[in-house]
Structures are given as structure tokens and as C-alpha cells.
């Protein structure tokens, strides 16, 4: 069973400036696919097509073997976790209430909701007794992002979309969260699409990497093999992520 599949998808306001142009990509169930590419390559648009924040102009996007246009958008979105760089925690709700939003929309009994919140806070490494009652603005950037991940996982959706999830964090925290994410993913085995402009992050987290440029997929393969690619657009991204050979001390990520 395929997780998410783009087949010949085009999106954009007609004519030359297509945001996605004949874009095809299959993401296997349980794998992490990292989408990398310069800004404007169409990475975020590809993600929004998965949870039907957008609908393709041509081609289709299939989630669990069903085209998004055939899904009830509400059902689809509740089966797809979504984490964005700005996180979008609800400022008028506590950490626990933020995580409990989708379970409550799904009308889970309150007992089940609170035990799930407890479990998820533990999973993302936040002590439930300390953090459940906190407000979003009482958290550090890293803690907020952990809550964002917990919220996205609340009803155990099979698919998870991450859009630059760690982009706003300092390098140390980012490294820490990347490790945590690997640990969580090794337990949960979600179908994950991770958008990043950071090739190093893509290589750490991705089972496979897709490189996008100008609305097209220009390279796709196992993370390890990307260093061997001769495509100039891929090489440029790889080299940008590598620390300069001599003055290596200055680079940190």
C-alpha cells in the first residue's frame, strides 16, 4: 500500500509560471521522504496538495490509494498530521488543550483525551506534570515545536507532513530535535514528507531525498546516494550544506 503518491501533478495559475509542473513522486508507507530545493521550488505547495489545502490543476495526489479530490477534506486532514515552521499553536489554549484539539473534534471521551495528551507529551520529551497546564508563550522555541509535533500526532494519523519544522530553532536545539524525531519515527513508522532547504537535515532524517527545482522533481533517491549524484543542481545543494574543507570550525550545522 502506497503512502502518498503524486502522479503528473501540475499546479499554478496557468501559463509559464507553474508552481508545480508535471510533478510525480511516490512516498512509501512508513518511510521519511525529505524534499529539498531552493525557495520557490514548490516544496510547500506539494505538501499542501497532500492534505488538500490545495487541489491540483492537473494530475492527482493519492493518499492511501485515494485521490485527494475524492476524500472528504475534513476526514483527510484529520488523517494527516501537519507541522509548520511557525507551528501555529493556539495562544488561548494550554499545551494540553492544544494537543487535545483534534481528539476533541473527533469526540473522544475526556478520559481518553487526557491519557493521550499525557502519552504524547512523554513521547516528545516534555514532562506532562510540568507542561500540560502551560500556555504557549511560556515555552521556548524548541518546546513549542515539540508540542506542535505532539499535536500533529494526536489521533495517530498515518501520514505526517513537516514543513521546515526545525527551521526557526538554534543549531543546538535543532540537532537535539532531529535526534528526537529519529527516535520517535523509529517507533511510530509514519509516512512522512519533510520539507527542508537544509541538505544536512535531509540527509540525517530522510530515508530518501527528493530534490526539487522550478516545480519539478530533478532527483530522487536514497539519502546515502545523493553524494554521488552528478546533477549540478543537486551538487550545489550538497556543497552548500557541507562545511568548507579548511575552516571547518566555523560551520556548525
Amino acid at each position, binding site marked *: 500500500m502506497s503512502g502518498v503518491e503524486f502522479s503528473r501533478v501540475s499546479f499554478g495559475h496557468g501559463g509559464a509560471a507553474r508552481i508545480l509542473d508535471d510533478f510525480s513522486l511516490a512516498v512509501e508507507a512508513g518511510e521519511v521522504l525529505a524534499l529539498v530545493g531552493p525557495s520557490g521550488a514548490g516544496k510547500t505547495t506539494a505538501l499542501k496538495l497532500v492534505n488538500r489545502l490545495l487541489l491540483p490543476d492537473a494530475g492527482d495526489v493519492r493518499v492511501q490509494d485515494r485521490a485527494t479530490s475524492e476524500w472528504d477534506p*475534513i*476526514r483527510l*486532514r484529520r488523517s494527516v498530521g*501537519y507541522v*509548520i515552521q511557525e507551528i*501555529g499553536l*493556539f495562544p488561548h489554549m494550554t499545551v494540553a488543550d492544544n494537543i487535545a*484539539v483534534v481528539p476533541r*473534534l473527533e469526540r473522544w471521551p475526556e478520559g481518553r483525551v487526557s491519557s493521550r495528551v499525557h502519552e504524547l507529551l512523554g513521547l516528545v520529551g516534555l514532562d506532562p506534570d510540568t507542561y500540560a497546564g502551560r500556555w504557549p508563550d511560556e515555552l521556548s522555541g524548541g518546546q513549542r515545536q515539540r508540542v506542535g509535533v505532539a499535536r500533529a500526532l494526536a489521533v495517530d494519523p498515518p501520514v505526517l507532513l513537516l514543513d521546515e519544522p526545525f527551521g526557526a530553532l538554534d543549531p543546538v536545539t535543532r540537532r537535539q530535535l532531529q535526534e528526537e524525531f529519529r527516535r520517535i519515527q523509529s517507533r511510530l513508522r509514519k509516512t512522512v514528507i519533510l520539507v527542508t532547504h537544509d541538505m544536512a537535515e535531509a540527509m540525517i532524517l530522510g530515508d530518501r531525498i527528493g530534490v526539487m527545482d522550478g516545480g519539478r522533481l530533478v532527483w530522487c533517491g536514497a539519502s546515502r546516494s545523493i553524494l554521488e549524484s552528478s546533477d549540478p543542481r543537486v551538487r550545489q545543494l550538497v556543497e552548500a550544506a557541507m562545511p568548507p574543507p579548511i575552516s571547518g570550525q566555523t560551520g556548525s550545522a
Partner: protein
Amino acid sequence: MTKLFRFWLDHRQELAILFGEHIFLVAVSTLIAVAVGVPLGIFASRRARLAAPFVGIANIVQTIPSLAMFGFLLPVPLIGGVGARAALAVLVLYGLLPIVRSTIVGIGGIDKSIREAAVAMGMTARELLLRIELPLAMPAIVAGIRVAAVVGVGSATIAAAIGAGGLGQYIYRGLSMVDSTVILAGAIPAALLALIVDGGLLWLERHLSARRRPRSHRVALAAAASLLLVAVVGSVVAAARSSNAIVVGSKNFTEQLILGEIVAQTIERETGLPVQRRLNLGGTLICDRALLSGDIDVYVEYTGTALTAIFHQPPANDADAVTASVRDLYARSGRTLLPPLGFDNTFAILVRGADARARGLRTIDDAARVTPQWRAGFGFEFLERPDGYTGLAKAYGLQFRSPPQVMDLTLSYRALAAGQVDLIAGDATAGLIKGLDLLQLEDNRRYFPPYEAVPVARASMLLRYPQVRRALEKLAGRITAADMQRMNYAADAQHENPGDIAKAFLVHLGQR
């Protein structure tokens, strides 16, 4: 200060009713404005292109002075006319702007990523609105409601001009009596009410923006809602009036208030029918419109005013002819002129009693000989009216040392007594004539048209309650100019209550 407390103490029942009416106007209009404005704001915030025009229109509405707004709405069916309904319509219009705007701002100000996260989580439009947008916009919306309610407390004072009641009645009464105690008696409770409303809603706003559990939000909202309910129910009960009452109106100056009371009490005493008082309505045209629309059943008009101001006929001098033609004009629009009350409130050319005695002045012709050395002061209306200054000067060949000074009518009596001017045009029945030892010169050339005071009633009401006609016919010719002067003096100079003055007069009439 003690005068003010004495006034409140003496009028505590009336004060409570006016306070209740005021709260009723503000609470109901604000509730309607919220019920209309919040959905309107939500709707506009969904359509970015609509938001700007919406706010623009609401802004323009806000800049219309409220008195002008009442004027615009007078002829509009359903919401126009006089009384609480029209006042509510105006107050709702004023309340809409801050509420619509704050709803648009509150919802528009929500971070884009928050909305995107909510949609991506699979919230329906309704869930997004109820769980995210409204809670986050709530402090802004409550701030808008606060502005609307506080502005409403202020605008509601003006509603007294169209007979909607409220604390503005004291303000208008005080203005027409030039009595600051009465003005303050209405203005201070209105200001207090504004402060209480402001403080209460500010508390609610703070409470909502503070981070609380939804349960505690609900407690705060429930507390606010039940307070509002108590206020509305309480004031509805206080303002409740029997619907089949005879409604007596009056214009907004002392003599009219007293005459309104005389008419009302006469109907009460003679017929036992319930009477509702809508005294202190803005002016001639408002009373006329109210009588036409059935908002009031009867009020006292002056024949000359009816002829020129209501029916736009040229002024005429023959009292009987004027009364006959006014009776005819009224009859054509379903209204009945009842017999005149007996006095003529014409313009009175007044001089100081001392001057008149020293120079032997009795008539305007006598005065014309000395006016070239005199200064005159006239109210604005007298200078403008077709039957005012220009014609008078021509009829008597009047000349003055300098062009007449424009001054407030009420102030001109005191200016004359103080020697700042030497001749004024006042009302023949003004109480101050007696109080300030002024003398009315005889209009020996019969320049001024007659202004006989006469009750006008809706014909359909008289048909249904013939006893009202019989009751009012008993007043025919019973009130002399001297009576009226005395009663006006009691109100203006001795600050007696128009109701008490009317009561004492009717007792006196019964004995005479």
C-alpha cells in the same frame, strides 16, 4: 449641591423610571447591535473586498450628529417616528460601527499560521470560527461593544428629544428652564451610568483576554449575560406602559410641559382612562409628525404656529379667521382642533417697567418715538421669522441706535432687566415678565398674528373616546395669559414641578 440632592429626593420615583428607561435603551440597542454587528463583521472579514466599504459606511453613519439622525428617521416607516422604537433604531446604527469594526479587526488580526494550522487539522469552517477565531477575537469584540455601549449612554440622552424617555429628559427640561440643577440631575446619573458600563465591560474584556480555562470564561460570560438580562427585564418592567393609554405630547419648553400636564391630568380626572405622557418632544415639527403617525394622541399647539410652520400659509392677523382656517387644515389630515384654552402666546414687545412708567409708554407706537436712542436684543428665531422683526420694524417704523443684537431668547429677558438692551421680543406668557418687572407694550396696530393655545387631537381617538373630547372642552377659555404667566413663573423662577403646578391650577379652576 443640596439643591441637587433635594431634587433627586423629591423626584426619586421619576428618577428611577428615567434611569430604567435609559438602561433599557442602551441595553436593548447594544444587544441588537451585537446581534447584527458581530455576524456582519464576521461576514466582512471573510470577504476582504467588503471589509473596507463596510467600515467606510459605518464611519459615515457615525459622523452624522445624533439629533440630525433622529430628524432623518422621523418620516421612515416602522423604525421612524417618535418614541423608544425610533430611538433604538438610531442607537443601533451608532452601535454598529465600533462592533463591526472591532470584529473585523479582531478576526483579521489573528496570525495566519494559527488559522492555517486550524484548517490543516481538519476543522470545519464552523469549528474554526467557534473554537479559534471568536475566542481569539473576543477581547477586541468586547472592546468594540464597550465603545458602543458607552457612546450609547451618551446618545440615549438625546433620545429624550423624540420622546423615548431616559435621563435626557432632565437635561432637556433643565435647558429649557435654564436651571443647571435639573440639567445636572440628568447629566450626573448619565455620566455615572457611562462609567459603570465602561468599567464593567473593561473588566469583562480583561477577563477574557487573561488566560483562563474555558470554564472560567463561561462563568464571566454568564455573569455578564445575567446582569444584562436583569437590566433589560428590570427596565422593561419599569418602562412598561399600558398600550391602550391616551398619549399626551408636548414640545420642549416650560409652558408646554405645564400645558401637557394640564391636558393629561384633565383626561385622567374626568375620564379615568390611563394616560401616557410623552412630554418634552423636540419641537413643533416633531409633535406634528408624532400626532400624524399616531405616536401621540393630543398636544397643545398655537394657531399662528400651526398656520405658518405646519401648514406653510402666510401669516394672518384676524384671530378667528386663523383659528377657522387652521381647524379646517387639521380636519383634512384626520385631526381635530379642540376649543382654544383662552390665552394667546403671541410675541410680546417688552421694556423695563421702570422705563415705561417714567416715559409713559403703553403701546409700541409710544415706544417708536424713543427707540432711536435704544438698543434691542432679539432671539434668532424672531429675526428670521416672516412674522418677526423685519415686518415689525416696517409696521411701526421702528429704528434703533444700532442693529439689534442676536441673543438667546431666555437670556434676553435678563439682558433687558440688567440694562444691556432696552427692548426685546419675548413670549407673552413668559414667567420672567412678572419676575423681572418687565412690561409688555400693546400691539396697537395688530401686527402680530394670533398664537392662541389650543389642543389638537387625533380624530380617530376622539371618536373612540368621546369622553376625552368632553373633558378637554371643559378647559375651553379657562386659562388666561395671567394664569399662564404665573404658572411659567412658578416653574422657571421657583423651580416647581410642572405636574404639581398643573395639579394646583386644576384644583383652583374647580373652585373658581
